[in-house]
């Protein structure tokens, strides 16, 4: 079972964001999708959980075609997918424990004690022990991202989607988050899809790295293949050389 996007097109008015984007994340791997700001990475990610519906093309998750699922089935599928938002998107009127417990409360037959235990377990996994009663506003940016990860993993999802997990963080916190993503794969064994424009992060966490450029998948390969590629767009992006990308365009 995997995540696959086939020839996905998406436009907002006259702005064509995705123009035939195709990619597949194999089971158990962490696939990093890179691209410039505004290239449509977040839009692509939102298609996977059915927050957006493609104008054309199909999205497959765990063997189901997302945009054809009826609402009940879509919610069942969403329970298998954890989503880490770019700015954490924690519910600001709730404590961290309540945030992490949200997904668990939707699982029938889960007792209050089980929820409390699982919340503590998830917070420990992201090094936020004792933060249960804090409000999101009382946490730093890095801590909020970690709380967002704890919320995403609470229901033991098969898939984890990370939207810019390290953007706006200092280098040390970035490394902590990257380590956390690796830990999620090793400890929990999830299939991960990480979107980022942080090159260092991509090399650290990705089994494979893909490049989203002008609405399509420009390149996909292992970190070594990315380092060795002569594709001017990929090379220009990875090395921070806009002139290479401009020539290619």
């Amino acid at each position, binding site marked *: 079972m995997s995540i696959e996007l086939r020839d996905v097109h998406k436009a907002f008015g006259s702005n064509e964001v995705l123009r035939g984007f195709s990619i597949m994340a194999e089971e158990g791997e962490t696939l990093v999708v890179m691209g410039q700001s505004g290239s449509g990475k977040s839009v692509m990610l939102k298609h996977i*959980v059915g*927050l957006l519906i493609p104008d054309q093309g199909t999205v497959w998750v765990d063997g189901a075609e997302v945009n054809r699922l009826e609402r009940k089935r879509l919610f069942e599928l969403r329970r298998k*997918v*954890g989503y880490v*938002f770019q700015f954490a*998107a924690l519910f*600001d009127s709730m404590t961290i424990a309540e945030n992490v417990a949200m997904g668990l409360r*939707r699982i029938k037959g889960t007792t209050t004690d089980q929820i409390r235990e699982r919340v503590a377990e998830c917070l420990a996994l992201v090094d936020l022990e004792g933060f249960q009663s804090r409000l999101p506003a009382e946490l730093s940016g890095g801590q909020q991202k970690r709380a967002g990860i704890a919320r995403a993993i609470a229901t033991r999802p098969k898939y984890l989607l990370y939207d810019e997990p390290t953007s706006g963080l200092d280098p040390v916190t970035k490394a902590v988050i990257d380590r956390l993503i690796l830990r999620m794969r090793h400890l929990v064994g999830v299939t991960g899809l990480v979107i980022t424009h942080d090159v260092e992060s991509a090399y650290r966490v990705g089994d494979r790295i893909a490049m989203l450029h002008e609405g399509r998948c420009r390149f996909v390969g292992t970190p070594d293949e990315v380092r060795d590629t002569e594709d001017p767009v990929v090379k220009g992006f990875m090395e921070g050389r806009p002139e290479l990308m401009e020539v290619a365009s």
Partner: protein
Amino acid sequence: MLTGEAALSVRHVDVWGRLFIQQMSRIGVDSVPIALFIAAFTGIVLSLQASYTFTGAIPLYFVGVLVGKTMMLELGPVLTGLALSGRVGANIAAELGTMRVTEQVDALETLAYPPVAYLVLPRVMAGIIMFPVVTALAIGMGIAAGWVTALQLLNMSTPEFVNGLTLFFLPFDVMFATVKAVSFGFVVTSIGCYFGFNARGGAEGVGRNTTRAVVVSSMVILALDAFWAVVLL
């Protein structure tokens, strides 16, 4: 569409049940002080204006008639509706708008919560139930304030005021006020939810939609007020 989806979401009691009680408190109980404040001063003014208008020509106990009828049929429901469109409608639009632009609504979806059942339904249902309660308290306060004013400033006696109050009272008046309050509760909360849900463009967008929610719901309240008068009176 949002209202239709909210109606379909009624079956998700596990999602909205707990929040419904919370919203009844926030929308209803927390709105009581402002509604009572407005009603008290309205009752005082009504009493004084009635006495000023009736001087010499009409018996003074008609002050009770005017205060009672006006508070129940018109000013109680409408002033409470307008006050709560500012307090409740703005609050809902700002809260849901902020949740929308900070991706909290998307987060709810990814956690398998139907956002309409979680956010819209408890607010609209709480509005429908609590607006009539707040309106009833406001009507009571307005009449009480009018009565105290009549006793203290117009030299009327309690029997005189009560006589006027009950003279033209019809049980239909209560039904009329309830219908208005229920419809205003529905309008204020659903319009607040609509503009909150559709907020775009960060803090500016949230601010713009909050203002729109208050303006539109105030206009709809006044239009509905005339509509019910035409249909039911």
